[in-house]
């Protein structure tokens, strides 16, 4: 088989080398921060999936749209992402609700795969509309307030944009979690997820609930997309890999479980960082997807699935 199998797969296998603790900590920190970002994207997807049983293939595109909103607000009106993310989230919320009304609502209760097909079409549509309108150019906000800033902590470097994203992510997820478990609407959402007709019979306006859930799911990813341009360039393909990772996180955490999504996303972030550094960067997603398979072997319904 040509050159040795192992050598082929691990061109820069490097576990043997001694590495200082500080680097390890830095890798873990980066993984953690990225994990928090994934969590924000995952929660939205998970919510939609868990409640409506709709696989939103356009999730990554919602992210991309949010990034564009922030970009344009920054570029045309000089609004910093630190502020404009709110607008981006709101924009995607509205976009999601519109998408729900126009497309998804017609597919509720229909074969579940039809929604998949529709969102796939949507993703293609959104991506290429952005390509058409905004050109395929990579757009980067040059002078954001936090862009490139770091807090040095001894040997460790704490990147501020990522830190802010992580904090916002934690806040948003906590809010959603409390909303889902403590509020009456949250209850209604759970009931709707379990049995739509029965929920309707409890006096719950389930189409409103669906629109709301789709909107919240979109808003979550909108928050993420609104903050990302602090250090990420925007272009029509920007959402693709994020959504891929989010899909795995959702299943890894267990569909519809918010805590599960959070933990799964952090786990994925860590594995990605550690494997990327200690094995080889190209294997980081192999490891992430492999991790999913292993976890699912032990817990077929994900970490927190019921």
């Amino acid at each position, binding site marked *: 088989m040509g050159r040795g199998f192992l050598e082929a797969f691990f061109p820069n296998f490097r576990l043997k080398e001694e590495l200082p603790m500080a680097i390890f900590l830095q890798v873990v920190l980066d993984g953690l921060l990225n994990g928090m970002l994934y969590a924000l994207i995952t929660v939205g997807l998970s919510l939609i999936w868990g409640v409506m049983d709709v696989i939103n293939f356009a999730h990554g595109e919602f992210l991309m749209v949010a990034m564009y909103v922030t970009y344009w607000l920054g570029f045309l009106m000089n609004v910093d992402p630190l502020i404009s993310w709110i607008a981006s989230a709101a924009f995607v919320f509205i976009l999601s609700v519109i998408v729900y009304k126009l497309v998804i609502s017609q597919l509720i209760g229909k074969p579940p795969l039809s929604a998949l097909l529709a969102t796939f079409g949507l993703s293609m549509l959104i991506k290429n509309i952005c390509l058409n309108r905004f050109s395929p150019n990579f757009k980067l906000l040059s002078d954001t307030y936090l862009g490139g800033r770091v807090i040095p902590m001894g040997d460790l470097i704490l990147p501020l944009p990522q830190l802010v994203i992580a904090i916002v992510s934690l806040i948003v997820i906590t809010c959603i979690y409390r909303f889902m478990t403590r509020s009456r609407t949250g209850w209604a959402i759970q009931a709707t997820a379990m049995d739509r007709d029965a929920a309707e019979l409890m*006096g719950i306006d389930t189409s409103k609930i669906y629109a709301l859930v789709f909107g919240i799911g979109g808003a979550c990813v909108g928050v993420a997309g609104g903050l990302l341009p602090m250090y990420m360039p925007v272009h029509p393909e920007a959402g693709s890999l994020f959504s891929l990772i989010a899909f795995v996180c959702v299943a890894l955490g267990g569909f519809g479980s918010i805590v599960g999504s959070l933990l799964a996303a952090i786990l994925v972030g860590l594995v990605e960082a550690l494997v990327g550094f200690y094995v080889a960067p190209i294997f980081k997603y192999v490891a992430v997807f492999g991790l999913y398979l292993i976890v699912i072997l032990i817990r077929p319904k994900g970490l927190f699935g019921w």
Partner: protein
Amino acid sequence: MTDFALEVRDLYAGYEGVPVLHGISFEVKEGEIVAIVGANGAGKTTTLRTVSGLLRPKSGFVKFYGEDVTGLPAHVMVRKGLTYVPEGRRIFGKLSVKENLELGAFKEENREVVEQRLEWVCSLFPILKERLNQKAETMSGGEQQMLAIARGLMSAPKVILLDELSLGLQPSLVEKVLQIVTEIRRYGVTVLLVEQRVLEALEIADKGYVIQSGRVVMSGSSKDLLESEEIKRAYLGM
């Protein structure tokens, strides 16, 4: 104006191109127990689904206390005071019994009122009281059926539609449940009942309608129906 709690006229409905109801009409007075009986597949469930708003009728109308409510979605009907307890239980399996019951009172925002109703249904169904924290899906078939009724009552409806109430209940419970139905009426709730146990149903009902292939083929007071030869032959197996 009209003294009907529920009035249904010429209802046509069906599923995806398959017509099931062909002009159903009936009426229920406030405080009555009305039974709808009929063979398997006659359209009883479809009738209740249409009245409760889960299914949109093709034509015809439904009036609730004189107000035209045709085609209103189910959640609006619940708010108006009409609750449907569907066949096949449809409880929220992953939630506890208590959570199921509280969801039943979803439209009620006052905690105290909810607590009161909880106590009320627990007194009607003592078994539930013992199981308040059990996951609903692990309860036996009969227990689930009782939970479904109790949950329906939690919304304190003016009119309750009960579908296949006794399905899968042990004999003593059938007796009990039917007794509860008569009790419910004493709390001022109007009952529309669908039952296969024609005999038992008619025994507690004031009035009955017989549905066959989506049409009302017979109606009258329970007594008359119970004595009718046709009913005896076709439904009581005598």
